[in-house]
């Protein structure tokens, strides 16, 4: 049963990958000859024609697609139009950097979300609960771009506690990770709070306490365990957002050399090899993560079974 489920999901994932790659190619083809974007507006007609021909941009669409498809199948996405280097190299350098940032942000979001959600649930309808709800709503509504700039102005420029930008595991990681974590933390806090309230008001909690369980044990064994399955689903979505979505903004604001920034830079330069390599790696990450989450979800909630 498990093997069949795994095979079916794998086939489904391959289909998604093919669709993503075809979409990327068609989108770029619709945007026209990259020559005009690479050479700029002051290039002469002769220079543009020679450059376009030398790079094969003037070939018919089926030739270009064939070249592209063969490249993708062999995991060779070609050389970057701008740097002239293998596109996959640029992506494989940038992707781990994004994973570092997303992992740090994810941990902050998880810990913060659990803390805030639990705090609110244990204090349902009290002032702490209301503060948490207002705070959670605020942090999940503010755009990352704005949060990032606010943190830079307050923490880096005014207080001089952390650097405004940079790269490394340490001080430069703190502000971008918090920026990336805040909105997911707010959303996770709501999920945890709702589930925790349901658990705390369920009939099996009082007997558990009557058996002498400490509040910490109640929290861990009952509240967290029951809140875990829906939280895992939400957390998975949040991690996906961080890696393939949030990174685009946060990495630009904090000069973090990850895949989000690489993608923005490649898009502005109409660099199809780099964009397709980045999209491929991003899509593979999302599909693998979803596959893992499937198993984790089943492991956490015994009511769910593979079909």
């Amino acid at each position, binding site marked *: 049963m498990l093997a069949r489920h795994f095979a079916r999901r794998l086939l489904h994932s391959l289909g998604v990958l093919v669709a993503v790659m075809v979409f990327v190619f068609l989108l770029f083809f619709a945007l026209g000859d990259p020559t005009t974007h690479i050479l700029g507006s002051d290039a002469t007609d002769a220079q543009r024609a020679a450059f376009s021909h030398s790079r094969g941009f003037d070939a018919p669409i089926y030739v270009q697609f064939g070249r592209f498809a063969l490249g993708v199948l062999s995991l060779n996405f070609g050389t970057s139009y701008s740097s002239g280097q293998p596109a996959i190299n640029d992506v494989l350098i940038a992707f781990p950097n994004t994973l570092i940032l997303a992992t740090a942000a994810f941990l902050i979001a998880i810990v913060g979300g659990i803390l805030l959600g639990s705090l609110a649930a244990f204090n349902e309808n009290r002032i702490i609960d209301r503060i948490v709800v207002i705070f959670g709503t605020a942090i999940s509504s503010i755009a990352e771009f704005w949060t990032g700039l606010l943190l830079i*102005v307050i923490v880096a420029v005014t207080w001089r506690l952390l650097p405004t*930008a940079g790269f490394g595991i340490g001080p430069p990681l703190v502000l971008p990770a918090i920026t990336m974590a805040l909105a997911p933390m707010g959303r996770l806090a709501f999920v945890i709070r709702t589930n925790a309230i349901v658990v705390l008001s369920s009939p099996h909690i009082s007997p558990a306490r009557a058996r002498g369980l400490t509040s910490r044990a109640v929290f861990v064994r009952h509240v967290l365990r029951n809140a875990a399955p829906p939280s895992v689903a939400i957390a998975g979505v949040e991690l996906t957002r961080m890696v393939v979505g949030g990174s685009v903004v946060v990495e630009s604001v904090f000069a973090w050399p990850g895949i989000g920034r690489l993608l923005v830079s490649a898009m502005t330069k109409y660099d199809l090899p780099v964009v397709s390599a980045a999209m491929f790696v991003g899509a593979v990450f999302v599909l693998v993560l979803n596959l893992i989450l499937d198993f984790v979800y089943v492991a956490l909630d015994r009511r769910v079974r593979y079909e």
Partner: protein
Amino acid sequence: MHRTSSQGGARKAIAIAAAAVTVAIALGGCSASGASTATSTPSGPSKLIFSPNTAPTTLDIDTVDDRSTTALLAPDVYEGLTHETYDKSGKLEWVPSLATKWKQIAPDQWRFTIRPGVKFDDGHKLTAKDVVYSINRRLLPSSAATVTLAKIVKAVQVNTMEVDVYSNGPDLYVYRAVYAIPITPYNWGTTNKAAAAVTADGTGPYTLASYGSGGDTAVLKKNPNYWGTPAKIDEVDMNVIPDAASALSALQTGETNVVLNLTPDLAATAPATLHTDSVQPFLGRIGASNPVFNNVKVRQALNMAIDQKSLIKNIFLGKASAAHGQIAPSTALGFNPNVKDFPYNPSDAKKLISQAGATGATLNLMCSKDRYGTAGSDLCQAIAEMWNKVGLKVNLEYPPAAQWLSNGLYASQNKVTPPDVFIVGSGTNDFDASTTLLSWLTCGVAKNVYCNPSLQNQITQASQMTNSAAREKALEAAAVSVDTNVPFVWLPLPQNIWGVSKNVKGVMYPIAEDVRWADWSITN
């Protein structure tokens, strides 16, 4: 009661975890405050950090036309045969660099003598072979850098220390153009392409000590074996910050000393700025396919309706100057000081439009939303309003970049009706007005929408002249003819603006990325 106890325990656990997170963040902060010094210390080596908004696409400099690559490497690591500087009167001049002398031996042929005794970082001596290789490699059709060389066609080795550079016609200024050709070792980027993309081997006042973080950081160290005057600053670091507001914050905290390419609004909040006129004025290309705008009176009216002073003051916040009715900046050959912008006179503009029977006519105006920043898009809003006031009905369009190019800039080539006015920043990179004028006004080329054979002929003839004075005079006359035929709406010439720390002194050039860090200084 029992519930209260349970809540208290959970709160304690939560509080401990929260405290741990806070302490971790605070610890990170403490170590950071000491880590981000940007300026020199009294006893230590001096250091300057500059921040472009994009990482160099590659360090293989002769294959790209990339601002960040240029700002990092040329001419501080890779030098040209000449280099630009300002004379005592503030006028641009080109002085010897890797060439000690040069002479024009035919209208389309210049001979350069290579400086003896110059060594690359790897220790080998510079010869004509390296120079010829570098120039010809930059001219390969597959090189995006070829766009910077409109007229040079090839280089040929004469002997071990002499090189001939050929142009595609009479060219008085090859010695100027070659300043922008970085000289690399022979076969650089051919035998080991991957190494050339991430390393450098030049002759300049700095050597590349490191390059990392996906191109986000680089360190230049003073070259102890440099053949010329040593650099004033011991170390120059590049630290890319893509977001302009973040870069400005870094400038305020001292994490960086120079932020490249600030917009006028952000420049107002920088500790200090350096600025210089760019070589790319904004201009509106008027399409002649619409009979309404094929009328010279209407084209004059479009210019007379533009309040240049207001645009410079309110859109560019003073960081721009008038274009003086011509593409060429005042530093270029062919700039005619007697040509002035049309006087701002909306009532006369209205009359001219009325006389041409164009009152109420629709004007399709195409602009780029993001190519020229906020000032660029605001500029279009403002001029649309100015033209609406003189009786035209402006249809302002901000298409995506791809359509801006295909349906705007290259509309003629793509056989689509061009917009009536297309706003673009365009100028001359080789300091000769004819190159840019011909790229717009040669009938049938991709960017041309106004065909006037006699005007084209006049500019072409001027560009073929071999006598400097005669050529200058002919180009100045062509500037008058262009002004009379009005194929463009003249708009302000923006400045290049860099934000700098107050302790930094430096020189900027019309093409800002041609910065020579070796001439900059930084004090405590």
